[in-house]
């Protein structure tokens, strides 16, 4: 009679699905659960001691206050800059849009700590840039960036592209007719923006704001470079200093701090989630855009203004950084005779830790990208085409390690792996493997979102046809689906590589000798007073990142729309 199998499908489908779900659970839920556990059950004994101690300490609340001030300030600045740029780029007829978006979004893909150093080098009495222009401030002037204002400024400029991208994605879905109807009714452009565009675009704008808030809150590199010298701690740097100074003995307290920052971030994450209903700038498929505003004689000034913003945010700081990397020591002015490539030579050839860091960063970023893409292609298949509440939950959970500040994941990982893994007996603490684990957990969503987007743009009948031809799921994934989502997967892999390559937050807490990353070595040089070595490393990582981003322009045609943030 019937050779039917269960209504749920074949067993191997289920093995694959549960395997993936289990993997995501281990990567996302397990570390966070362990973290929360440590806050309430420090060192194995249930007690509120750790919580009481941390919450009762003045330094906790000082740092929290500073975190909120800088996060809110940075977000407001980013919203103003990024929002305005988005409105101009999306609604007017400026030229060179693609090139501009590429340059404007680029700082977002570069390392935050490198950008911070670049900005530092733009100010202060010994700035090679200011010196060359003859406008360096006199001796004894403090660098204005070592302050809350400095942190807010750099964060605001650095994360403005986030608001830009989210708002722009929203503006793309605005039907042209709505704006044209208003214009036909006699409203001027500013009134249209005020009464029609902004009210309709409130959800994407607020979502971008929430995303920006969480990023500012969790960022480590900028307050590390700008806040530590000026003695202005925020929660991530406080966690870092506690852990660095006191070692694993401070883990329980650091766990409480991590939970605290996680909870604050949750406000932003939940807000973003509710506003965007699961869409974000990386997965938007572009519709035909509304461009109703003609600028006419304002066009050239507006274009100049836009490119000036990009110049100030990108070119100027990087120039200062480049100049710093060419001077032999701090405070030496850059002239034809003092310029030297010594810093580069040292960093590339003479310094063991730096050489190791290059290998480690390249290697770990590449491996993380490959592993994630391998996991994500089948996972996205289930998430896109087999709806179920469990899968929806898995999707949500996989976002946590990326949405939450990096310090949270790092501390969670330390707690999880401090002792050797049970049954296997191997300890990955203080090795590159714990950093790799965190990269995979944290950047999983960076691969997941583009691939899901790729699946959405796929015609399902292609898979059904292969099913009818007799192919089971593994073969279908391999022969039909993978070749078709490969471009989206490649885009995701690139995003992952770039982000992992440039990150500092996670590896600052997890590194040890032999597992240094470029971010760690950069930071270590800067802390030790060797700004020129730090600048050299910074320039090298910027060059690699920019080259990678440029290479995607070659692949431009084959990539699905909306997966790479710097491609319009």
């Amino acid at each position: 009679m019937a050779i039917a199998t269960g209504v749920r499908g074949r067993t191997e489908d289920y093995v694959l699905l549960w395997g993936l779900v289990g993997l995501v659970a281990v990567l996302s839920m397990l570390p966070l659960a362990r973290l929360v556990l440590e806050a309430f059950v420090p060192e194995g004994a249930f007690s509120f001691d750790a919580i009481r101690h941390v919450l009762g300490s003045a330094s906790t609340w000082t740092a929290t206050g500073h975190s909120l001030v800088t996060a809110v300030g940075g977000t407001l600045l980013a919203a103003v800059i990024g929002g305005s740029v988005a409105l101009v780029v999306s609604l007017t007829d400026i030229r060179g849009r693609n090139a501009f978006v590429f340059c404007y979004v680029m700082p977002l893909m570069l390392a935050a700590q490198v950008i911070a150093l670049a900005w530092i080098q733009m100010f202060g009495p010994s700035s090679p840039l200011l010196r060359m222009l003859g406008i360096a401030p006199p001796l004894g002037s403090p660098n204005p960036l070592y302050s809350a204002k400095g942190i807010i400024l750099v964060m605001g400029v650095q994360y403005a592209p986030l608001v830009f991208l989210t708002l722009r994605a929203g503006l793309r879905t605005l039907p042209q007719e709505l704006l044209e109807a208003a214009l036909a009714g006699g409203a001027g452009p500013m009134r249209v923006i005020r009464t029609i565009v902004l009210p309709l675009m409130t959800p994407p704008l607020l979502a971008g704001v929430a995303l920006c808030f969480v990023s500012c809150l969790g960022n480590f590199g900028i307050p590390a470079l700008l806040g530590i010298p000026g003695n202005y701690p925020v929660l991530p740097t406080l966690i870092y200093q506690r852990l660095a100074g006191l070692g694993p003995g401070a883990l329980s307290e650091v766990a409480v701090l991590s939970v605290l920052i996680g909870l604050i971030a949750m406000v932003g994450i939940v807000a973003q989630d509710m506003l965007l209903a699961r869409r974000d700038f990386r997965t938007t498929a572009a519709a035909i855009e509304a461009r109703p505003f003609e600028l006419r004689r304002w066009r050239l000034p507006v274009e100049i203004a836009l490119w000036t913003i990009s110049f100030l945010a990108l070119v100027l700081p990087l120039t200062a950084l480049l100049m710093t990397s060419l001077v032999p020591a701090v405070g030496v002015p850059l002239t034809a005779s003092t310029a030297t490539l010594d810093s580069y030579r040292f960093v590339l050839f003479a310094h063991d830790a730096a050489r190791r860091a290059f290998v480690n960063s390249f290697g770990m970023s590449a491996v993380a990208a490959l592993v994630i893409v391998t996991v994500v292609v089948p996972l996205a298949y289930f998430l896109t085409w087999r709806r179920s509440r469990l899968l929806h939950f898995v999707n949500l959970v996989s976002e946590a390690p990326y949405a939450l500040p990096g310090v949270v994941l790092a501390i969670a990982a330390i707690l999880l792996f401090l002792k050797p893994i049970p049954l296997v007996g191997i300890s990955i603490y203080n090795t590159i493997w714990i950093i790799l684990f965190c990269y995979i957990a944290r950047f999983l969503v960076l691969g997941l979102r583009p691939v899901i987007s790729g699946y959405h743009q796929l015609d399902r009948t292609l898979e059904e046809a292969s099913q009818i031809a007799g192919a089971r799921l593994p073969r279908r994934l391999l022969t039909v689906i993978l070749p078709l989502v490969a471009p989206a997967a490649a885009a995701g892999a690139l995003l992952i590589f770039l982000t992992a390559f440039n990150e500092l937050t996670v590896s600052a807490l997890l590194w040890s000798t032999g597992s240094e990353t470029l971010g760690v070595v950069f930071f270590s040089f800067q802390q030790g007073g060797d700004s020129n070595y730090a600048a050299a490393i910074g320039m090298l990582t910027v060059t690699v990142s920019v080259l990678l981003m440029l290479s995607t322009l070659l692949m431009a045609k084959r990539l699905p729309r909306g997966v790479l943030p710097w491609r319009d």
Partner: protein
Amino acid sequence: MKIANFRNIAIAGLCALLTAGTVAAQAPKGKLVLYTSQPERDAAQTVAAFKKAQPGVEVDVFRSGTTEVMGKLAAEFSAGAPKADVLLLADAATMESLKKDGRLMAYPEAKVDGLDPAIYDVDRTYFGSKLITTGIAVNTAAKSRPTSWADLAKPEYKGQIAMPSPLYSGAAAIMLGTMTARPDLGWAYFEKLKANDAVAVRGNGAVLTAVASGEKAYGVLVDFMAFNAKAKGSPIDFVFPKEGLPAVTEPVAILKTTQNPAAARAFVDFILSDDGQRLAASMGYIPARASVGMPAWYPAGAKIHLMPTDTPAVVQANSANLKRFAELFGN
């Protein structure tokens, strides 16, 4: 133990016994884990030179500020799994506390000829490798030039002084302990500095950056950093204050729990050998064994007046001092 006045050593120059080739009958090999608070570049050079002398040994280095290195050690001790074999830290006070906890392995056969006995531990658990003094660094464009520590309390230096925080730097901790014990300086001096808007920054590296970049005109800084930067063209000068200079000896020690005692001893030998001492001088440090010669910046025939340090007293008062400093200057 008092560190005697090094004038005698400098002028008279103890005759250096030729240190025989210290290569043991059996060349040491395997892995050696070094924890050090030396600056990056110097740590790299030290390890590279050691590897040339002992090619069979692989060296793993962990480098950070003294506080952080001690924190890491403390963590490893409490987990019962210390990873380090040898330590090369800023000051003897740190080593004293480790010795008191019974963490150090004695090396009686170490070749200490030519070294002032004040430089190494009487029980041969740690050995000073060089002399690092702390003085006043001045940006060459600065208007005034201090000649003594007391000068820094004067009004014309207000808001222009950076100093390394003893909460982070071992050398600064020694400086704090040494100076607060003196009647002519004491805690009153630091209160005057605070009133003069001096800032405490994270480590000597930050002081160097601040002074060389011109953000502060004056800084409390270790000698070799100022002179090495000056040699590369940084606009910075170093002043030997009249009252004298506190000094640390950057001792090397072997941990009792070392996995590779042969290589560890070879490392100590290297540090104390003529080659190791010459390396220190070439990196800009005053070597422990004066006979190998002074670094290039050392004014010929000069006498550097050191502040004597009562190490056990400093160790005793350390945590109280740090707490008081934190209350005064902030965390």
